[in-house]
C-alpha cells in the first residue's frame, strides 16, 4: 500500500522513500493490506461526509451503517474460509432465506398454532434459533458432502443450492410473508430496544480492550519463552493504545446516538419517569447484530489463525496435493467449511428476519454477491490460500459504506450497483498489480 501513496513522486527518490516506509510498517509486523483498507475506508467516509455536508459522520448514520454491515460481515467471515480453500458458496442468500423462513414458521406458526403453545413464550426464541442453526448446518453439511466426497464442483453444487433452497423457502410458506415474529427474537435484529444501552456497551468496549492487551502481552511472552526477538515494546504500546482508542471511540459513537424522542417518551411514560425539558435522552449503544458480528469475528479469527482446522484450510488452499500428502483429511476439512458457512448463513437469517420482524420469500436475495464482494475486497484471493477474517469484515464495512453513502446522497439504486461493481473489480485489480510488483 505504501507504493500506492508514493506513486506521484519522481523515480529517483521513490526507491528510498518507499523502502523506508515499508521497513517502518514491517517493524510493526502489521498486515499492510489491512492498513491500506483502513486508509481507503477513512477516505470513503471523509469523502461522503464532505459531499453530504456533514451528514455521513454522524452517530446516527454510523450506527445504522454498523447494523447494515453486520449481516454481510457475519457471513463474509465464513466465505473467507470457503474461498481460501478454493471453493465458492453461491447458495448462502438462499440458505439465509430458507433458514429465516423456517425460523419464522417455528415461532409464528408451528409453536403457537400447530402445537397450540401460544405466541411469545419466553423459550421460543432459543428453540427457534437452535433449530434454524441446525438446519443451516445440515444444509451446509449436505452441500459440503456433495462437494468434498462426491466431487461435484462447489460452483455447481451451490448454484443448484441457490435455486433449491429459495424454492423450498417459497414452498414452506406458500409464498406468504410470515409476521410478526417473537418479541424477544426481534431484539436480535437491532433497533433501539435491540441494543445494549450505555453501560453494557462500555462493558463490551472494556472487554475488547482487555482482549487487545492480553493478546499483545501473551504474544510477547510466547516469543520470549523461546528466546525469539520480540517487537520493540514502544511499537506494541502504540498498537495497544490505537486499538483501545478505536474500541472505546466506537462505543462512544454508539452511545452518542440517542433513542428516537417518541420512543423515549413512551418508555418514560411506561416506567413512570418524568421527562426532563428537551426530552429523555437514552443512549442506544451497540446494536445486538453488531455484537453478534463482533463475537463471530472473534471466534472465526481464532479458528482461522490459531486452530489446526484453520491451518488446514489455508494449507489446502495453498497446495491441495501437499495437504493430502501431509496426511490432512482434506475432504472432512472442506465439508466443515461448508457446515460453518451454513451456520453463519442461519445466523444471518436470524439477524435479517428479526430486523424486518418478518420472513419474506425474498429474504437475503443477492446477499451472496455482497458477501463474496466483501471477502474479495477484504483481500481474499480466488487463487486460494490467501485471506483474513478481519479483512473480510472491513470489506463488508467498505461495501456498506459505499451503499449507505450513496443512499444519503440520493443516488439511484441502479447507479449504486454500478459503483459497487466497479469498486469490486478496481479493488481486486489494484491489489493484483501491487502484488505483482512486490514479488
Amino acid at each position: 500500500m505504501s507504493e500506492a501513496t508514493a506513486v506521484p513522486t519522481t523515480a529517483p527518490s521513490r526507491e528510498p522513500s518507499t523502502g523506508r516506509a515499508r521497513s517502518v510498517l514491517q517493524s510493526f509486523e502489521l498486515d499492510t493490506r489491512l492498513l491500506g483498507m483502513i486508509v481507503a475506508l477513512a477516505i470513503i467516509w471523509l469523502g461522503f461526509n464532505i459531499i453530504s455536508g456533514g451528514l455521513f459522520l454522524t452517530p446516527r448514520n454510523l450506527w445504522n451503517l454498523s447494523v447494515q454491515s453486520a449481516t454481510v460481515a457475519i457471513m463474509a467471515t465464513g466465505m473467507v474460509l470457503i474461498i481460501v480453500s478454493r471453493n465458492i458458496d453461491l447458495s448462502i442468500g438462499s440458505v439465509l432465506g430458507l433458514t429465516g423462513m423456517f425460523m419464522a414458521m417455528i415461532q409464528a406458526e408451528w409453536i403457537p398454532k400447530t402445537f397450540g403453545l401460544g405466541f411469545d413464550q419466553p423459550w421460543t426464541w432459543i428453540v427457534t434459533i437452535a433449530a434454524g442453526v441446525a438446519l443451516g448446518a445440515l444444509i451446509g453439511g449436505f452441500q459440503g458432502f456433495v462437494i468434498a466426497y462426491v466431487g461435484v464442483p462447489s460452483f455447481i453444487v451451490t448454484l443448484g443450492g441457490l435455486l433449491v433452497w429459495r424454492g423450498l423457502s417459497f414452498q414452506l410458506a406458500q409464498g406468504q410473508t410470515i409476521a410478526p415474529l417473537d418479541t424477544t427474537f426481534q431484539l436480535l435484529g437491532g433497533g433501539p430496544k435491540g441494543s445494549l444501552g450505555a453501560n453494557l456497551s462500555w462493558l463490551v468496549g472494556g472487554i475488547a480492550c482487555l482482549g487487545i492487551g492480553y493478546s499483545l502481552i501473551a504474544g510477547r511472552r510466547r516469543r520470549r519463552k523461546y528466546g525469539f526477538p520480540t517487537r520493540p515494546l514502544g511499537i506494541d504500546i502504540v498498537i495497544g493504545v490505537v486499538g483501545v482508542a478505536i474500541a472505546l471511540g466506537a462505543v462512544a459513537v454508539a452511545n452518542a446516538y440517542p433513542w428516537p424522542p417518541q420512543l423515549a417518551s413512551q418508555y418514560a411514560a411506561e416506567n413512570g419517569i418524568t421527562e426532563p425539558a428537551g426530552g429523555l435522552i437514552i443512549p442506544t449503544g451497540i446494536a445486538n447484530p453488531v455484537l453478534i458480528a463482533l463475537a463471530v469475528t472473534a471466534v472465526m479469527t481464532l479458528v482461522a489463525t490459531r486452530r489446526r482446522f484453520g491451518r488446514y484450510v489455508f494449507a489446502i488452499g495453498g497446495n491441495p496435493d501437499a495437504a493430502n500428502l501431509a496426511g490432512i483429511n482434506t475432504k472432512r476439512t472442506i465439508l466443515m467449511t461448508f457446515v460453518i458457512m451454513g451456520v453463519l448463513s442461519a445466523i444471518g437469517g436470524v439477524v435479517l428476519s428479526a430486523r424486518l420482524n418478518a420472513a419474506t420469500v425474498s429474504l437475503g436475495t443477492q446477499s451472496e454477491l455482497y458477501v463474496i464482494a466483501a471477502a474479495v475486497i477484504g483481500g481474499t484471493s480466488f487463487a486460494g490460500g490467501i485471506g483474513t477474517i478481519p479483512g473480510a469484515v472491513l470489506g463488508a464495512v467498505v461495501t456498506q459504506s459505499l451503499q449507505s453513502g450513496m443512499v444519503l446522497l440520493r443516488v439511484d439504486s441502479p447507479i449504486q450497483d454500478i459503483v459497487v461493481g466497479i469498486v469490486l473489480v478496481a479493488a481486486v485489480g489494484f491489489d493484483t498489480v501491487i502484488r505483482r510488483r512486490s514479488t
Partner: protein
Amino acid sequence: MTMGDPSASQMPAPPGPGMAPVPGTGLDAETPEPVTAPPAAAPAPIGDAPIIEMRNIRVAFGGVHAVDGVSVDLKPGEVIGLVGGNGAGKSTLMRVLSGAHPADSGEILVDGNPVSITNPRDAKALGIETIYQTLALADNTDAAANVFLGRELRTRLGNLDDAAMESATRKVMGRLNPRFRNFKVPVMSLSGGQRQSIAIARAIHFNARVLIMDEPTAALGPAETAQVHELVAQLKSEGIGIFLISHDIHDVFDLADRITVMLQGKLVATVDKTAVTKDEVLAMIIMGKKPGEVTETELAELHG
C-alpha cells in the same frame, strides 16, 4: 548426529566425537558453501532383518499395470537405488509405501509384521517419511507450518503453538541449513534449495526410520547435489533405511548399496552395487535384461 529423541539410542549410532558437530549441508541457492568432504561416516551398519518388505505389489490405472507384482525390501542403514525409465512404475511403487496411493493387491511388512497403509498418516505413524519430487509444500505458509503440517504442536487449550513449532523448526533447520533465516515468510518466496531443505527437515524431524527420496537432486545445482549426498550418508550412518528414486545412474552408484531396476511396471532385478557395472544397470533399465542375460554386443550398442 542425533535425531534428538529417545529411540535414537536404540540405533547403532556412531560414537561421540563423530556426532557432535554436524557440518551444515547449507542447501541454499543464494549462498552456496564450499563443498566440504563428506565426514568419514562409520562403515554403514546395515542390519540383517529388513525394516520394509513389499511383496507382490500391484497397481493398475484403468487397464495399465503401473506396478505389476513387484517385491522389494529394505534393511536399516541401507540405501536402495530405485531406477528405471519414465513410466517404469518406481514412483507409483513408492507412492504405495508412502500412503499416497493404495495398492490393488500385495503386502507390506514393517519389521516382519504385515501393516495396512491406506493414507499418508498411516505411513508416517510407521516412521516412513517421504520427500516428494514436487516437495509438496503449502506455498502460502511459512517454514514451521510446513514442517509440522498435519502434525501441529498445540497448547493445552488445543490452539496452535506456533512459537514451539518455530523453535523446533529453527533447530532442525540449523542442522540442515544454518544460514536459513526466513522463518516468517511464506515458503513460495524462498529459493529452490531453501524449499528443498524445508521438505527434508519435515521428513527427518519426526524420527523417520525409512526415508523415501523421489529425485531429491533433480532441481538442484552441483554444490547442492553434493550436500544432499552428504546428508544421505549421514542418515544412513544413523541406521535409517532410504529408498532413493533417481534418473541419474551416477547418483545411484554413488549412494546406493543395492539397485532395484524396474521396466514397464515390472521388477527387472535387484542387484548389489558392487556386483554390476553401470553399463549392466543401463542394460537392465533399457532392455530389461539381467547382467547374465546380456551379451557384449548389446552392451556395446548402448553406447552406439
